[in-house]
């Protein structure tokens, strides 16, 4: 068995679980800034109360994000010692910068935003919201830049001992991959945030409670969510696919389950990859679309997996194919949901359209699935490399940590994260049932 197997499973599990929280944090941070800004400009208490409600959810979510994020930083050393030693001077930079530039900012103003309005007044409180938004989005940038280096290494030099050293911080932070992946990831986080806000708005509307807050939730979430869902697909998703086509052609072939090389490459809408037979079973295809989407013209050649040595193929083509298609499919569906409900909302018919409200209330898990599927696509597409083209994943694990130790810590995380997940749901459901008016009655967390 691959000696890195349990290390990979543990990192995949802890990273996927962790990312349930920051995607909402980053999405909500923007929504909260929008609400606080509306509150500042239009006066009254309604927008502030709406923002305060989401800030309480934000606080609970943020705590889980911190708690599940710290183990990821440590796992670079505990489980991926080979990677740490080989590329620490490069990826350590962005990870350390996240702490210095983003976490200090976030952690210093979180308490102020969640509990401190009376302490600093309206403008000060608005500034705290902006600080949290800036901190959480900066944090996202450093993490995406770290991942972008692993996907498409730039700005490094090779030291005499063979390790990678950072030669240009500018090149590392402004690589086309980092910028594109960042925009794509952040917009997807906004989609998650918008669907969460819309779901609570839809729930209150269906239950005919908290009508004023529900109206405000929907009024912000629908346009923000629609624009973000549109931009996730185009231009950012499109640009990201073109980068994969240019720099990881084997990954693109595997994402599409394409084995043969040729022009007028078709895109597969539905079908099952059959790696043993090197084909897609039961496909429904659109001719020429892949050539067009990857390179901009229908007659251009897209290389299939047969063109690459098998030891450079992603090692789980089936999962890669499915997660990519789930991401794209859900992205399209979520955009449609936002477009239709926004149309109804603009015409003033959403509050009376119960089927549409039901859809909106139940849609919130799907952005999470799309985000996770997108990350799994990115990480599996990079295989068998941990640093693309430079270091193989099987050589990156800590040499003296037994796979059994990794399995043991993985089981520990499963137990801990089950408990944390239950706590999270308990806390958030409690806030939603209390509703946005509770804060106005002076109910804090006593």
């Amino acid at each position: 068995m691959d000696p890195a197997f349990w290390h990979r499973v543990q990192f995949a599990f802890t990273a996927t679980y962790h990312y349930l929280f920051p995607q909402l944090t980053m999405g909500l941070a923007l929504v909260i800034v929008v609400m606080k800004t509306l509150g500042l400009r239009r006066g009254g208490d309604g927008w502030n109360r709406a923002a305060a409600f989401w800030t309480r959810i934000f606080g609970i979510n943020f705590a889980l994000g911190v708690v599940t994020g710290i183990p990821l930083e440590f796992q670079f050393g505990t489980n991926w010692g080979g990677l740490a030693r080989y590329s620490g001077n490069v990826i350590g930079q962005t990870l350390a910068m996240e702490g210095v530039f983003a976490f200090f900012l976030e952690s210093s103003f979180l308490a102020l935003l969640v509990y401190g309005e009376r302490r600093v007044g309206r403008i000060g409180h608005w500034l705290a919201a902006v600080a949290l938004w800036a901190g959480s989005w900066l944090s996202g940038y450093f993490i995406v830049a770290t991942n972008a280096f692993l996907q498409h290494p730039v700005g490094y030099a090779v030291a005499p001992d063979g390790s990678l050293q950072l030669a240009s911080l500018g090149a590392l932070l402004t690589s086309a991959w980092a910028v594109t992946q960042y925009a794509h990831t952040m917009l997807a986080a906004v989609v998650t945030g918008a669907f969460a806000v819309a779901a609570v708005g839809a729930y209150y509307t269906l239950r005919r409670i908290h009508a004023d807050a529900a109206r405000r939730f929907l009024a912000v979430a629908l346009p923000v969510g629609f624009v973000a869902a549109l931009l996730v697909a185009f231009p950012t998703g499109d640009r990201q696919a073109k980068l994969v086509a240019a720099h990881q052609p084997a990954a693109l072939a595997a994402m599409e389950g394409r084995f043969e090389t040729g022009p007028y490459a078709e895109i597969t809408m539905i079908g099952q990859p059959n790696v043993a037979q090197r084909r897609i079973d039961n496909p429904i295809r659109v001719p020429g679309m892949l050539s067009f989407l990857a390179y901009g013209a229908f007659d251009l050649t897209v290389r299939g997996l047969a063109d690459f040595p098998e030891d450079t193929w992603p090692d789980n083509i089936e999962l890669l194919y499915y997660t990519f298609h789930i991401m794209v499919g859900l992205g399209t569906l979520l955009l449609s949901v936002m477009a239709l409900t926004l149309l109804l909302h603009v015409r003033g018919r959403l509050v009376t359209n119960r089927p549409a409200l039901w859809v909106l209330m139940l849609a919130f898990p799907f952005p999470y699935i799309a985000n996770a599927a997108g990350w799994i696509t990115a990480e599996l597409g990079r295989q068998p490399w941990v640093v693309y083209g430079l270091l193989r994943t099987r050589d990156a694990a800590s040499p003296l940590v037994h796979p059994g130790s990794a399995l043991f810590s993985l089981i520990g995380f499963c137990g801990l994260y089950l408990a944390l997940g239950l706590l999270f749901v308990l806390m958030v459901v409690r806030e939603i049932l209390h509703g946005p008016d509770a804060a106005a009655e002076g109910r804090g967390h006593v």
Partner: protein
Amino acid sequence: MFELWFWLVAAMFALYVLTDGYDLGAGALHLLVARHDTERRTVIATIGPYWDANEVWLIAAGGSLFVAFPRVLAAGLSGFYLAIFIILWCLALRAIAIEFRSHLREPLWRAFWDAAFAVASALLALLFGVALGNVIRGVPLTPDGWFKLTLFTDFRPHDPAGILDWYTLLAGVFALVALAAHGAAFLAWHSGGVVADRARRLQVLLHALLLALWPLATVATMAVNPSLLAALPGRPLAWIAAVLAAAGLIAALWAGPRRRAAMAFLGSAAFLGGMLVSTAACLFPVLLRALPDPARSITAYAGGATAQGLRTALGWWAIGIPIAILWFVILHLLHRGRVEAKAETTGPY
């Protein structure tokens, strides 16, 4: 450049101990200084706005170690594998305890999280001391620069070593007492009412205990790692720092009974900072000492980064850390003053 980064990383770990140290210490004393719900909310509200920012120093220091000495980070974290996960799980439990404890009014819910907060905080303080003890004692590095340690062997600080032996446990107890004293000094300074009174009495008691433990710990350290004693005459910084530590301890003992809480806290901070700087000055340039053959030790000059790589890192570090310190000052100005929870309140904790 290598010397500079040795000291930058050491300073960041020291700042972590000085800042998160007081909220870990307050947690370790939680059940002692606070008996009822209102008092316990006072403790948590006192550290509430700060603990998260304090913990970021651990991330920033660890990240800087990653950049500057990747071989040390890779060997250290993988070598202490299971112990690191115990630390991570304690950090998680503690954070959840602080943030979620007061969300429900249910008394058993609160009793559970109070205990979790106290146990996790005390265990973390102990384990950080054990970790420092391991660094001082040394670890069995292979020629390739990796190691693997079991949790314990025969509790003797020689090859075959374990993470826990009498020396590292002594270092752990020393750290627990020192951080508890630091936490008590912070509570005496920033909390109010009966909690502050109890904390002040405990601070004096714990600093007195520290005065008794200090010679013992020093003698044990010199016995376990004789190279420190050998290095001492040529390291003026170690002397200066040790004098600072002694002055800090005396100041804490003098100021505590006289209710000069700020001075007692600063004395406690000077003691911790002096101890850490003096240890680092004696260890320099060794970052990870090898057992049984010290020639295999990983030094600051062979930590895995080149001078070029370190120069690049210095660029953002010199911008980022002053900004971080600015946020830190704003945070403390915003939340200044004593904190005392009331029986019926709408406060956050």
